[in-house]
């Protein structure tokens, strides 16, 4: 293993030219353990991981980036509610990794990461391969906490789908809705905070209602909620009253919305006071925690999520391992695709800065979430974040939800921009 200097790094990484280094006279010292080029491994090719991999290559084309993703194609959770509502086909939310390889030179390996050795700085893959790294980025999304709701385990999810990871589960819920008789009832159970996509359960209710309105108008949707308030609540409730009067019932935590047990044979769920609700289709969104590999590698704390330095996303538990996206404890940022991508870019800058011995610029973070109340009725929430003494915090008096009293044209424009957001964010990760 050769000694590796900042000068070599910066040269190899394409961050700057040797003459410029000369001017600045940077000290020597960074060592790369894996040869002449710094090596970054990213686990998880979703919103956090793919964006981070791409931006590391954009910042420093000389750094080798290997992305480990278990699936050959990425099916987005965003817009999966439109598939459940029969508006889009699953093919329209399925994306390939080709361009990440071809255009950005990211080495994409389709395999499952099974072990992280943070001391030896290696990652083991299911195929038996071992990858060494200088910096590791972990963005595995979420894992469900099975049986926290009694009898709700992976097997039960084949009968009461969660559809909270996009793919076969999305299609299963769609098929159940298609098979349901007119006049049937659907239950959606919404979890307590924190969970991925805070407005997601309510958008789902809207798009199922939109389908029912056209095809099964006598049907009903009950949301059993483990919370007393939810994201964009006044906007959603206003939308429900306008577009789907009397179709959606929301049962808050105080009103008995907390589901503690399921019975897949009797087709019912039970709340914390022993009251049972029966339905034809039951969609259980169980509580979650950081992705399995993060748990296994000891990156999560007692909360089930991963504590990080919120400026660099380096784990506070393991050096040179960064955790981003849903798995990370990222201050006031919600668990969303936009947030995961935003964190991916900050993390990319932190990693390149550290490898190159350069200063990490002051980070900036954003989240926005668009939701469909109907196919032509969009709403959004936005926030800009800064790093503070207490971690990542939203800038006060900025962002917030769509205005309450606006006309149909405004809602329609937001629905059009929701698609625009989707296209841009997917392009920002893969293209």
């Amino acid at each position, binding site marked *: 293993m050769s000694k590796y200097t900042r000068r070599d790094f910066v040269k190899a990484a*394409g*961050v*700057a*030219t040797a*003459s*410029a280094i000369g*001017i*600045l006279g940077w000290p020597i010292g960074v060592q790369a353990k894996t040869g002449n080029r710094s090596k970054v491994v990213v686990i998880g090719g979703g919103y956090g991981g793919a964006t981070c991999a*791409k*931006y590391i290559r*954009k*910042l*420093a*084309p000389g750094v080798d980036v290997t992305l480990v993703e278990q699936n050959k194609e990425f099916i987005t959770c965003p817009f999966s509610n439109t598939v459940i509502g029969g508006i889009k086909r699953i093919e329209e939310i399925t994306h390939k990794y080709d361009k990440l390889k071809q255009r950005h030179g990211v080495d994409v390996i389709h395999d499952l990461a099974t072990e992280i050795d943070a001391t030896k700085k290696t990652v083991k893959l299911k195929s038996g391969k071992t990858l060494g790294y200088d910096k590791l980025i972990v963005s595995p999304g979420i894992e469900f906490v099975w049986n926290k709701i009694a009898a709700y385990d992976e097997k039960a999810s084949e009968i009461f789908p969660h559809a909270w990871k996009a793919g076969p589960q999305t299609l299963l819920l769609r098929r159940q809705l298609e098979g349901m008789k007119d006049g049937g009832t659907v239950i959606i159970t919404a979890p307590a905070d924190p969970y991925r996509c805070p407005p997601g359960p309510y958008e789902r209710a809207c798009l199922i209602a939109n389908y029912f309105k056209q095809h099964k108008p006598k049907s009903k949707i009950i949301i059993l909620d483990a919370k007393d308030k939810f994201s964009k609540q006044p906007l959603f409730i206003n939308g429900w009253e306008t577009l789907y009067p009397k179709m959606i019932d929301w049962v808050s935590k105080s009103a008995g919305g907390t589901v503690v047990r399921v019975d897949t044979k009797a087709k019912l769920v039970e709340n914390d006071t022993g009251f049972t609700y029966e339905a034809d289709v039951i969609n259980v969104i169980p509580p979650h925690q950081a992705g399995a590999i993060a748990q296994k590698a000891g990156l999560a704390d007692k909360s089930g999520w991963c504590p990080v330095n919120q400026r660099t996303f380096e784990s506070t538990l393991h050096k040179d391992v960064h955790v981003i996206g849903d798995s990370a404890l990222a201050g006031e940022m919600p668990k969303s695709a*936009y947030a995961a*991508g*935003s964190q991916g*870019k*900050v993390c990319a*800058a932190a990693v*390149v*800065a550290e490898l190159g011995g*350069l*200063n990490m*610029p*002051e*980070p*900036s*973070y*954003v989240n*926005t979430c668009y939701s469909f109340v109907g196919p032509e009725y969009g709403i*959004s929430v*936005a*926030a*800009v974040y800064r790093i503070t003494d207490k971690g990542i915090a939203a*800038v006060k*008096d*900025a*962002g*917030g939800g*769509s205005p309450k009293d606006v006309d149909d044209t*405004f809602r329609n*424009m*937001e629905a*059009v*921009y929701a*698609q*625009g*957001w*989707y*296209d*841009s*964010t997917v*392009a*920002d990760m893969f*293209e």
Partner: protein
Amino acid sequence: MKSCNLNKRLRSCLIGTACAVLLPVIAQADELSRAAMLSYTCAGCHGTNGISPGSIPSIYCKTADTIEKALKEYRDGTRFSTVMGRHVKGYTDDEIQLIAGFFGTYCNEKIGIKK
């Protein structure tokens, strides 16, 4: 116009330390700056480097002045918006200038050319 742009870029880079000196030399250097950190966040809606593939307007190949003016008008409510007004309230005048300066340098990124 050109020198004005460069000025803004330089100012933006000073905050990102080393890159100010490197700026004229190579593209990637000014990517590791406060200006880039602020501007990368826009890409989730406007596409990487401001090149939007969908319904949200592209913002590459606009001058820094045009972008700065638009952002301030959104913030002050003198220009109609669905979301930009809410969003831009999160930035100071200095930050808006850094962002405008950053995007002002991107043009025809698809074929790898910067303004």
